[in-house]
């Protein structure tokens, strides 16, 4: 679908309001542009004509003056109402779009987030939408108002004096042509400016984050010269813009001057030749019209320029909305009451991209209540297993089942709310500690939150914080150590009380000994009586697992209990010894 058309479709729900806005614009145009007409009447009837007596003329003057004021007040009030209405409609449309984009992003599959930077998504919901909003409120509706204003004035001018009007209108195509040309040039210059500014910003962003590195490696001079190169580039784009911009207003001004000149010339000659067609009042009213005429004309051609920019934003937004959602909900999801908690992988093949298989022909099953540890070197495909269970990705071949039900037959929400996750990098939301544990889920009581925290040994340090459970945390979880964040995230997983399943990706980063003990204890409690799959890095976890899966290059090469595997020797034993970092 055509981009502009599609954008228009977002305004359809508000067509009644839009119609009202149009009517209000029409009324404003008629009212405001009638004002010079009254001035003409005043001039002609009160000042120039000498037949009527002075008193009568003064009365007429006051009467016309009152009409003028009333009309002006009326016109401007309507204009105010119209402006507000327009803004409101624009806001409504943008509201819908913004919401659509946000919801869309949340629906996207994990693979999309792997290749799309958060910054890119952010600029869709912020700057692109903002540009769009500007365009919708000021641009589209503003242009309609401008167009009406122009045609309104033209109408009044024609009504007053066709000859004079046509003379002035004759200059318009030329003027519009010149303005259009300048606008095209300006648009090009502006695009250059934006591109170059973006490139400069990218450089600066990186240099600022890496400033210490730059200093440590004595690269300051190189960084400055890279910066200056792009800065100079940007400046030359600005100079280009100035060159055309400085032509722009003189163009409008000369058009205006030309029109005044024509009015004076044609009007002057016609009055001289004794024609009755043009009166002095007409003359004065025309001067007023000409002035009002060029303002909307200028802003109209300006908006034509911003149209292109806005369309680029709209296109980006629509492209996002059109992204294919790869992980879809089934048409008729299965919703078992309770799941016992057996998991099975049947001949699963999976690749993040193309044919680079990360999981090759993987089959295993987990009995309810079992704890399974997955071990293997980095890149062996361990984390992928838990990603497949939660349908962050879908398998290419084979099936993952829970209680014999293919995970694809669950509603995604339903599936994930039955699973409990602890990720390697603990993510903290802005909000209180309690919110971070309870996730503001309806029906989670404070007492449950505290119980969860106590279970995973998080209670003591939370209590020690300034406002305890009501302490506000920010996104980065400042003020919390890594170990504390991990405990907090475990409390969160526990508080959500997932039905039967725990899926954990153990953190590798080192924490101090005391915290390490707390975490190990918490892990053991988390997994008690629940089917759990752990990507294990801790020896204690591995040893206590009911069964261990040994992964290598995406393949399951061995499985069994720790003792069995050790007895068998081979890869597991090597791996285990390395995990102990025994140098001898």
């Amino acid at each position, binding site marked *: 679908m055509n981009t502009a058309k599609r954008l228009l479709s977002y305004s359809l729900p508000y067509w009644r309001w839009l119609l009202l806005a149009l009517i209000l614009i029409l009324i404003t145009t008629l009212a405001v542009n009638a004002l010079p007409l009254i001035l003409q009447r005043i001039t002609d009837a009160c000042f120039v004509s000498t037949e009527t007596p002075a008193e009568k003329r003064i009365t007429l003057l006051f009467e016309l003056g009152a009409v003028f004021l009333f009309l002006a007040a009326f016109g401007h009030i309507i204009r105010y109402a119209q402006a507000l209405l327009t803004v409101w409609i624009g806001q409504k449309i943008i509201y819908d779009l913004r919401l659509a984009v946000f919801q869309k992003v949340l629906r996207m599959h994990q693979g999309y987030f792997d290749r799309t930077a958060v910054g890119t998504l*952010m600029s869709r919901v912020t700057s692109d939408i903002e540009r769009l909003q500007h365009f919708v409120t000021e641009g589209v509706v503003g242009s309609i108002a401008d167009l009406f204003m122009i045609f309104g004035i033209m109408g009044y001018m024609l009504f007053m004096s066709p000859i004079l009007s046509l003379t002035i209108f004759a200059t318009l195509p030329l003027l519009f042509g010149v303005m259009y040309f300048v606008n095209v040039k300006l648009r090009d210059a502006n695009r250059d400016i934006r591109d170059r500014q973006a490139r400069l910003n990218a450089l*600066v962003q990186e240099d600022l984050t890496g400033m*210490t590195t730059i200093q440590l490696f004595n690269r300051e001079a190189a960084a400055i010269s890279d910066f200056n190169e792009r*800065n100079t580039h940007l400046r030359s784009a600005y100079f280009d813009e100035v060159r055309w911009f400085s032509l722009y207003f003189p163009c409008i001004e000369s058009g205006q001057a030309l029109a005044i000149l024509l009015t004076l010339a044609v009007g002057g000659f016609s009055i001289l030749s004794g024609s009755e067609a043009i009166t002095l009042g007409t003359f004065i009213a025309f001067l007023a019209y000409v002035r009002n005429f060029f303002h909307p004309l200028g802003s109209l051609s300006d908006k034509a320029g911003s149209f292109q920019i806005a369309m680029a934003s709209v296109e980006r937004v629509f492209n996002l909305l059109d992204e294919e959602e790869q992980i879809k909900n089934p048409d008729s999801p299965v919703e078992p009451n309770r799941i016992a908690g057996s998991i099975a992988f049947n001949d699963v093949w999976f690749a993040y991209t193309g044919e680079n298989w990360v999981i090759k022909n993987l089959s295993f099953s987990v009995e309810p209540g079992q704890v399974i540890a997955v071990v293997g070197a980095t890149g062996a495909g361990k984390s992928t297993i838990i990603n497949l269970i939660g349908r962050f990705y879908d398998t290419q071949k084979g099936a993952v089942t829970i209680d014999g039900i293919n995970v694809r037959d669950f509603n995604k929400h339903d599936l994930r709310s039955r699973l409990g996750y602890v990720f390697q990098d603990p993510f903290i939301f802005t909000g209180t500690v309690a919110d971070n544990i309870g996730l503001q889920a309806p029906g989670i009581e404070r007492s449950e939150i505290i119980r969860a925290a106590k279970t995973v040994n998080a209670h003591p340090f939370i209590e020690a914080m300034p406002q305890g459970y009501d302490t506000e945390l920010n*996104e980065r979880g400042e003020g919390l150590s890594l170990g504390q964040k991990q405990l907090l995230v475990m409390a969160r997983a526990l508080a959500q009380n997932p039905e039967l399943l725990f899926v954990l990706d153990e953190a*590798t980063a080192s924490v101090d000994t005391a915290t390490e003990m707390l975490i190990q204890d918490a892990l053991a409690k988390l997994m008690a009586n629940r089917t759990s799959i752990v990507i294990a890095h801790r020896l204690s976890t591995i040893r206590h697992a009911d069964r261990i899966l040994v992964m290598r290059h995406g393949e399951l090469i061995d499985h069994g209990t720790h003792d069995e595997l050790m007895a068998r020797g081979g890869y597991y034993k090597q791996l285990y010894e390395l995990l102990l970092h025994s140098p001898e």
Partner: protein
Amino acid sequence: MIDALEADALTKELLLKYLGQFILIGMVSIIFSRLIRQIPLKLCHKIEYELRADVFAHLTKLDQEYFRRERTGDLMTKLSSDINIIRDAIGQGLLQGIRTLITLISALVVMLLIDPQMTGLLFAVFIPTTLVFFLILRVMRRYQQDLQEHISEVSNFCQESFSGIRCLKGFALEKRRNSQFENLNSGLIRKTMRMQGTRQFLFPFMAFCFNLATILIMIIGGKRIIENNLSLGVLTQFSQYLFYMQWPILALSWVMSLMQRGKVSWIRVKAILETEPKIADFDFPEPEKLEASIQFKNLDLEIGGQLLLRNIDLEIPAGTTLGITGPTGSGKTLITSLVARLIDPTSGTVKIGGKDIRTVSLSSLRGMIGYAAQEPVLFSRTLEHNIGFGVENADQDLIGWAAEIAHLHGDIEGFPEQYKTMLGERGVTLSGGQRQRTSISRAIARRPDILILDDVLSSVDTQTEAAIMKKLQPVMNERTTLFVSHRVSTLRYSDEIIVIENGKITQRGTHNELISKPGYYAELNTMQQLQEKLEKGR
């Protein structure tokens, strides 16, 4: 001319003469009008350029602490939009401000000369109008600020939702998140409407006031015309001036708000320029090559009122390795930062080759050092560029050697364009371990006299760790090395190991000495060995 028309005294010749004058004046004023725009605008872009270059150059001199304190986003805003606002304030302020003043004053003078009474009348309308206008403007600005805060709240919310997407999906929070977003989004409409309610009022209000002024002039002037006290020409002229004044007055308020914003931005940007680099650098005469021994003498370090390092005395002979360990946050990284002068001690000295490092120029000091950090920053360039970052014209052999030592060569072979592969968004994204290894290569590619490795193997898995240590060990042995680590297995080969707890050196000695003394190191060792033994006993 209007007067002449009215008096029927206008002849064709006279009309032509007037028209000729009009054209001439028009042409001159168009050229003038272009110049009057071009000159200040070009000027302001030049100022913008210089200012931005100055700020950036100044930033390269500022210390690490500054960048830790300031958020990158804030600095970015200052370098882009704040500088743009300053430029606009200068450019538009000059351009519009001067034009407006000239127009207003000249119109005023002419009007006063023609008819003081009517001028007075105009002022009676204009002054209250302008006052009300500014009042509305002030209210509007408050609403605007309110709206701006809400907008950033919305974008923070999005940012958090997107970066925490896995957690959000893992806990099936989409619905809750969506409804929270809906609330924020509606707030946006409400606040926008409130702001626009005042903003949209401005134009109709001003336009109406001008209509009011026009009609007052028409009525009062008209009465006098009818009473034959005033010529129609004067009246017309007056209403023309009124039109002329309409835009400048509106523009004036715009320029004033622009200047206001410009001032605020300037204060923000100036704050950067006025920040003195805490690490003062002077042009010291280039010393003959310093010996790579390091000494810490009686050193204290205090940041933000907290004593982070206390009474540090260290002696690291050239060519030896110092292992540093201790709990997280105890001050290990600070020791390494002090050697590279990323930070200066509050009291005491750091000496290299017996010379206080504050009397050595920063570039020659840092030229001796190869530094690899735990969370390294890499640049969106090629891998080659990143590894050879600290070397002028690094050749292939050097880069290959450095990559080999850090056990990175194999990974690189697997990349689409090997060493020419771009990092970052436009290329490959490295894993945490690969980033750390790249940073190790970058440090050793300099072939530094002093090598600083700050917990650089924390994201590397155990197999790779052993492989790296094997290759790295000879490189470390050739130079003075500061080696921060949590693992006894990697620390044990150091010539001396220190344990830092709470900013103090609590233990020092060789691996063998330390394991026999009670304390942190022995504990660390037993813990790691206990796990080992537990296994063997089974």
